[in-house]
């Protein structure tokens, strides 16, 4: 009977391909929208993720997310350094500065001031130049967005000058930083120089980045810092999630995207479910004839489920491949970088499409099992 089920499914090519395309389209729609949504939320914590040396972030107790900070003092830094279990602690400045190119092009940019001595917080992948450039005075590193906005398209080179805040600086390196939530240029400078560029009061910092001594867990270190200093201390992961949840709770973007995904789900469910139901409906008299001939309902159900699984597998594979191809082709696009197809999205999309097609199959199966004899004998 598997042969008959297969032939019934593939014999009518337009319907067969229509069914596969409907499921592929639904899969693409759902997985693509979910990936964009997840990628967008992931961008909110990009600057936390880029700091790979430190595992604990210390901040003002009322800080809710990475983009809104209240300055700490160097006194706080010394307190943190004195907490038992702290291997090292360094300052990080996060500020906004206006950058202006020699042709007058300007744009607000994110300026990160990393520890003068260790450069902790600097991204580790360099597209031009290297970390040593930041040792030079009035020298910064810039990310791809900043470079391409102010300087031009690759190949990336160093040595160009531009105004950053109150200073004229030289680009000493181009780094591959993760894209931030708002696709602003990101500049990196030594902490002391970043303070000069922003014209801020000296000896103020945004975050303290810390590392635990061997044998002390990150969570334990956070508890100790909070208890000893009264400051808020979070692991990189926890701070990242806090930032994501802040955006979910306080901006309309996730809700609107959620609605878009819901619509994508509904359209996908309707298209794939309806197409499969129609396919079964159009074959109803043949299933009815098989039932009259003596094929048991159980075997007919098996045939329909087999057909559902085949179109599901092919349609899903095609749709998910299209999504993967989309992100592969756009991975170097500055506006779309960072968006990617995650295994979780693949699984969730697969589960949703499976449920939709299975439900359509069950509804169709019911029609076949209780098939009207008149349909069999009168066509």
């Amino acid at each position, binding site marked *: *009977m598997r*042969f*008959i089920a297969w*032939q*019934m*499914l*593939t*014999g*009518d090519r337009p319907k067969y391909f229509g069914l596969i395309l409907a499921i592929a389209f639904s899969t693409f729609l759902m997985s693509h929208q979910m990936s964009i949504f997840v990628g967008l939320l992931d961008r909110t914590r990009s600057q936390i993720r880029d700091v790979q040396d430190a595992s604990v972030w210390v901040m003002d107790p009322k800080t809710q997310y990475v983009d809104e900070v209240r300055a700490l003092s160097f006194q706080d830094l010394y307190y943190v350094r004195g907490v038992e279990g702290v291997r090292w602690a360094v300052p990080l400045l996060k500020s906004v500065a206006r950058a202006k190119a020699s042709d007058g092009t300007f744009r607000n940019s994110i300026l990160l001031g990393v520890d003068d001595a260790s450069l902790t917080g600097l991204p580790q992948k360099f597209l031009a130049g290297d970390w040593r450039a930041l040792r030079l005075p009035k020298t910064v590193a810039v990310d791809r967005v900043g470079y391409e906005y102010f300087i031009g398209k690759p190949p990336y080179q160093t040595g160009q000058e531009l105004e950053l805040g109150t200073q004229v600086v030289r680009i000493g390196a181009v780094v591959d930083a993760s894209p931030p939530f708002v696709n602003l240029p990101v500049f990196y400078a030594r902490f002391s120089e970043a303070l000069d560029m922003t014209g801020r009061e000296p000896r103020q910092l945004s975050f303290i980045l810390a590392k635990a001594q061997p044998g002390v867990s990150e969570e334990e270190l956070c508890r100790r810092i909070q208890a000893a200093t009264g400051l808020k201390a979070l692991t990189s992961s926890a701070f990242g999630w806090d930032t994501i949840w802040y955006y979910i709770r306080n901006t309309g973007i996730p809700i609107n995207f959620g609605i878009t995904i819901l619509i994508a789900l509904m359209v996908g469910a309707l298209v794939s479910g309806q197409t499969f139901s129609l396919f079964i409906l159009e074959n109803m*008299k*043949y299933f*009815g*004839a*098989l*039932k*009259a*001939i*003596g*094929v*048991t*309902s*159980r*075997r007919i159900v098996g045939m329909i489920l087999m057909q559902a699984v085949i179109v599901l597998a092919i349609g899903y594979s095609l749709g998910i491949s299209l999504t993967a191809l989309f992100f592969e082709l756009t991975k170097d696009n500055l506006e779309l970088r960072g968006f990617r197809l995650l295994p979780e999205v693949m699984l969730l999309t697969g589960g949703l499409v499976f449920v939709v097609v299975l439900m359509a199959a069950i509804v169709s199966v019911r029609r076949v099992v209780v098939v009207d*004899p*008149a349909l*069999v*004998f*009168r*066509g």
Partner: protein
Amino acid sequence: MVCRGVQKAFGSGPSRLEVLRGVDLEAHYGEMTFLLGPSGSGKTTLLSIIAGLLKHDEGSVRVLGKNLSKLHNGEASLFRLQNIGFVFQQFNLIPALTAAENAAVPLLSAGWRRKDAIDQARRLLSELGMAHRADVLPNKLSGGEQQRVAFARALIQSPRLVICDEPTSALDGPTGRHVMELLRKIALNPDRAVLVVTHDFRILEFADRIAEINDGVIQKVTAAKGVS
């Protein structure tokens, strides 16, 4: 096949419709029994009950000694597969299967290997003069050819009862006659009963016995000359 006092109604209350009101009917081995009646007379309902696709309310139906209404769905399906051959009004050939594959469907359902089943179907189609069309899809076959494939499918398991639902309604006069001659020639034998449901008066000459049904009751049973 013996029906005694078969009753069937649909709906309840004021909308209740009695479709069969005590049908008595027999079909004997070696005979072609025609069930003749206008549209709405209860032919399809009776056919569905005899095939075990529908349960009757009252009376008894015994097919080859079995009461199909007492069998579970799976048992009834197996009984139909082994003992009853069907020819449908619209043929109901699966469009994606070739003539041979369509004819082999009952054997495939019975668990035969595909090659053996299709070889058997080819032999039967050859007997029906369809050897050269065995690999053709139904939409490339004429109405008469499709009917012959439907006969092959109905007969391939050597059933002891063959039920034909309006076998000539989709065919023109000469083709219909030819098909009935063929049916009589290949389907009828001393171990098999053939029940033909029709309202086509042009083919009545092929009947051994004609039962006329109207308003859910068998009005008259007429035996052809030479049939007791």
